[in-house]
């Protein structure tokens, strides 16, 4: 089933947020998120629990009402056209939200009937690929099996935009790989996929671009590769004689000294570090790109959050279409 974007107009971005705010009394929530997710992109939304990932998603889907700002999904305004937003969206919540007193097939039939989708061919195909059993009541299924059914229900109506909140919870590695293949195929068919996660490996394996959210504020939006290259480096330096106090250098963390050899992580522009190294006598130098996990941790260990404008600047610097 083809689901059209607003009034024949193809929006440039699948998801757009302008200074979106949702504030809770305890100070949590999201505080002015601005973000653009392009059509056909697999976009990762990273952050630990309580950072504001689910709040962002729930606000997009109309489960929460924003306190300020604006957002669109497939060109539809989340407040004015909330029903249309949900029509073009497939949503997989972080915890099982299907009715456990009903079978997978009953949950699926209910969702498709409400969406006005006839035929369950695509759902059957998805269930077969993922190995999801739609016959038993959900309460009789394991957590992983329920998650497979939830994925089938989220994708069965062939949505234009997929919003997945911690999608791989409970899936075994083999099914995870099948699921990732499925998502890549969806991307190849022009679908946009927005994945919220705190599992860095899955974002690294799947996403072209990621946004990192901290305390409800975007701290970085960039290509996965660019993040790895531009931010944190792992260095292994062999000095002549006694090594200098590397730990005192700005941006240096995780220092590990082994005789004249010092290993450390560096966060920041590379030029100042090279100047410091140039002042020393060294015999060997190795620079490695870090894993996304190290990048992520760097954002969470380095002092106060950046303001929203910085998040947007990050977005602009890495705005070309991603996804592998």
């Amino acid at each position: 089933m083809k689901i059209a974007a607003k009034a024949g107009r193809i929006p440039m971005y699948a998801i757009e947020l302008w200074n979106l705010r949702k504030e809770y009394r305890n100070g949590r929530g999201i505080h002015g998120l601005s973000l653009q997710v392009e059509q056909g992109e697999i976009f990762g939304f990273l952050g630990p629990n309580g950072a504001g990932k689910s709040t962002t998603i729930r606000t997009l889907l109309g489960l929460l009402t924003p306190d300020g700002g604006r957002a669109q999904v497939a060109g539809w305004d989340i407040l004015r056209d909330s029903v249309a937003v949900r029509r073009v969206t497939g949503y997989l919540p972080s915890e099982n939200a299907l009715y456990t007193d009903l079978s997978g097939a009953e949950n699926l039939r209910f969702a498709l009937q409400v969406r006005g989708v006839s035929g369950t061919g695509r759902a059957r195909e998805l269930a077969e690929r993922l190995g999801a059993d739609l016959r038993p009541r959900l309460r009789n299924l394991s957590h992983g099996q329920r998650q497979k059914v939830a994925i089938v229900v989220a994708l069965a109506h062939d949505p234009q935009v997929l919003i997945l909140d911690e999608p791989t919870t409970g899936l075994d590695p083999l099914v995870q790989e099948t699921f990732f293949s499925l998502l890549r195929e969806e991307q190849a068919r022009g679908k946009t996929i927005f994945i919220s996660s705190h599992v860095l490996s899955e974002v690294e394996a799947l996403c072209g671009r990621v946004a990192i959210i901290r305390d409800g504020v975007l701290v970085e939006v960039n290509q996965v590769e660019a993040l790895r290259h531009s931010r944190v480096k792992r260095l292994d330096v062999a000095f002549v004689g006694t090594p200098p106090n590397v730990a005192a250098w700005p941006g240096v963390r995780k220092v590990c000294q082994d005789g004249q050899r010092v290993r450390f992580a560096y966060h920041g522009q590379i030029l100042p570090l090279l100047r410091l190294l140039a002042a020393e006598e060294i015999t060997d130098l190795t620079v490695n790109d870090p894993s996304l996990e190290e990048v992520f941790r760097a954002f969470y260990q380095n002092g106060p959050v950046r303001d929203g404008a910085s998040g947007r600047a990050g977005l602009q610097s890495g705005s070309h279409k991603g996804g592998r």
Partner: protein
Amino acid sequence: MRVYMALGWQYLREHRLATLVWLAVTALMSYVVASTAPAVADEQLLRAFLRNLPSQVRSLFGDYLQYRNGVDYYLSYKWLQIVPLLAGIFGALEAVAVIARDIDRRTADFTLALPVRRSTVLLARFAAVAVNLALFYLVTLVALWAELWQLGLPGSVARYGALFAGQYFVSLAFASLAVLLSLVSRSYGAAVRASELVVIAAYVADLANRVAGGPTALSRIVLFGWVGTREVVGEGSFPWGAMLLGLALSAILLRLSVRVLQRKQIPA
């Protein structure tokens, strides 16, 4: 209509077991009470039965001579007056589950993320509650009729039906109130407790007022006074007032519920 049907059907399917248990128990109780009615079918036995009734009960149900026959009087005392309390509790339990249970069990993330207005979800599911309540009264009536017919007793089944029609709309109003309470309560459990408390308190207030011979207005304020068995089964008046008032109150309370639901935040 397709969306209403899908939402209503899903609700009925999900609650099928609880509904069946309620219906089965009520039908069984109707049948059992009706099966004890032969004890008062005979005039002599009826008089002996009435002599043993406390004066408060007599004031509640009036003189048996106001009734067509002893069976009507006996069933009013033993069963027909209790049915609206059971229906009120059943309806409130079902109504609280319309939205609040979904929020409590996180299934709201599934249902409210579907392309459907919240008002549609609420109204479609309330329609399912209304169907279940109608079934409740229907099986109660059918069970009564079946046993009376089998025993060849002269019960006024049409009047019982009229009484149930009035009670149905009163129960519907209590169910609507339960929906509203569920949307403003802190949790599903709190909503269940509050709704049940309201129904039981209203029923007890009506009963106490009647026994004490208090003003009719007080019983009418708590709604149950609109469908007295003496008036409907004994005197044969049709409970139009209960039906109209129940319908109007349901409409008002559901409208309020829709407003509250539209502003309701569904937290993670």
